[in-house]
């Protein structure tokens, strides 16, 4: 999933301080799962914003909405009946959701309420860790299913660097050395000889080297 964290309230308030009618929009997908911008977080932010405005003797009208997926036009369309009644939209979706609202409602000010972070998985309740970098050319088949692009601080593709110590990365003792994890996994699977295979220099054009990316499925595209 795409992970995100809510921005400091002061930053959000700064965007909308002159607005009196706010449309606060969450998303039912990734940001709900990582507890950053789902229905509950929308309610919490609305309450905090309301209290902040009232404390300063101001009034604000906040309409709370949470879309099924804010990154898809069909769902963003649900905002249409309410958009004219808002001075600004505050979106709690990831950057994709924010930009989809911007694309649909050109004349409306749209502000982000979360910092979109990374593609990750839940290690345990309340803890999410980076797992995929979206490099566009998956190496997991070569590395025992553990990604050195997303999980090695240096994105090394042929074994650890000299900073690997006791299975930890030199950047922080809280970060596992991914090449230790890969080696352990290859051993578990009995395919340690795979470690000897040299992975050639990566073609980064499939990552961001080739500019903004797009996927077109001709059979589905309209």
């Amino acid at each position, binding site marked *: 999933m795409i992970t995100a964290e809510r921005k400091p*309230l002061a930053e959000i308030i700064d965007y909308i301080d002159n607005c009196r009618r706010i449309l606060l929009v969450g998303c039912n997908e990734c940001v709900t799962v990582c507890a950053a911008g789902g229905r*509950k977080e929308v309610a*919490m932010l609305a309450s*905090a914003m309301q*209290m902040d405005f*009232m*404390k300063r003797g101001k009034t604000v009208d906040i309409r709370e909405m949470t879309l099924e997926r804010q990154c898809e036009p069909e769902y963003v369309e649900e905002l249409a009946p309410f958009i004219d009644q808002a001075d600004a939209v505050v979106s709690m979706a990831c950057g994709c959701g924010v930009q989809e609202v911007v694309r649909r409602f050109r004349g409306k000010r749209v502000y982000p309420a979360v910092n979109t972070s990374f593609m990750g998985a839940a290690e345990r309740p309340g803890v999410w860790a980076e797992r995929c970098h979206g490099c566009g050319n998956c190496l997991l088949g070569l590395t025992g299913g553990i990604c050195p692009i997303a999980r090695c601080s240096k994105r090394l593709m042929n074994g650890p660097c000299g900073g690997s110590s006791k299975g930890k990365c030199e950047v922080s003792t809280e970060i596992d050395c991914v090449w230790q994890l890969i080696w352990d996994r290859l051993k578990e699977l009995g395919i340690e000889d795979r470690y000897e295979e040299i992975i050639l220099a990566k073609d980064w054009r499939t990552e961001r080297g080739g500019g903004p990316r797009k996927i077109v499925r001709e059979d589905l595209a309209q």
Partner: protein
Amino acid sequence: METFEPVIVAFCCHYCAYTAADMAGTMRLDYPANVKIVRVPCSGKVDPIHMMKALELGADGVLVAGCLEGDCHFKTGNVKAARRVTYVQTQLEEIGVEPQRLAMVTMSAGMGTRFAAIANEFTEQIRKLGPNPVAAARKAQAAPAPVAQVN
């Protein structure tokens, strides 16, 4: 000057604090009428939004009262509630509302005396803090415009 009587919302777990409050009554112990009790099946049922809404809608203080650590009827509801209280306190701090207006307390069903003592202490603590700034602003907004004064 009018004495400030705070409104305190206490979310009380059915298995401990609510029974303790009941016991305080049975024991004829005095505790301030300021404390308004909301019975919940477990302190872990109290969501951050409940705490926020109570303060947003005019409460001057909010108590979340659960079982003693290790005694939760649902195992860890009280531990989760304590974490949520800490989280909401950080949110309150961000908007400039005193985090002391929200507190987590624990007790067993037999601690009627403790409930009454906590109710007294917390009411005094909130009385010292003064009215919730949000509630005060709400009241001021709702008040009718002052009548024009003749010189």
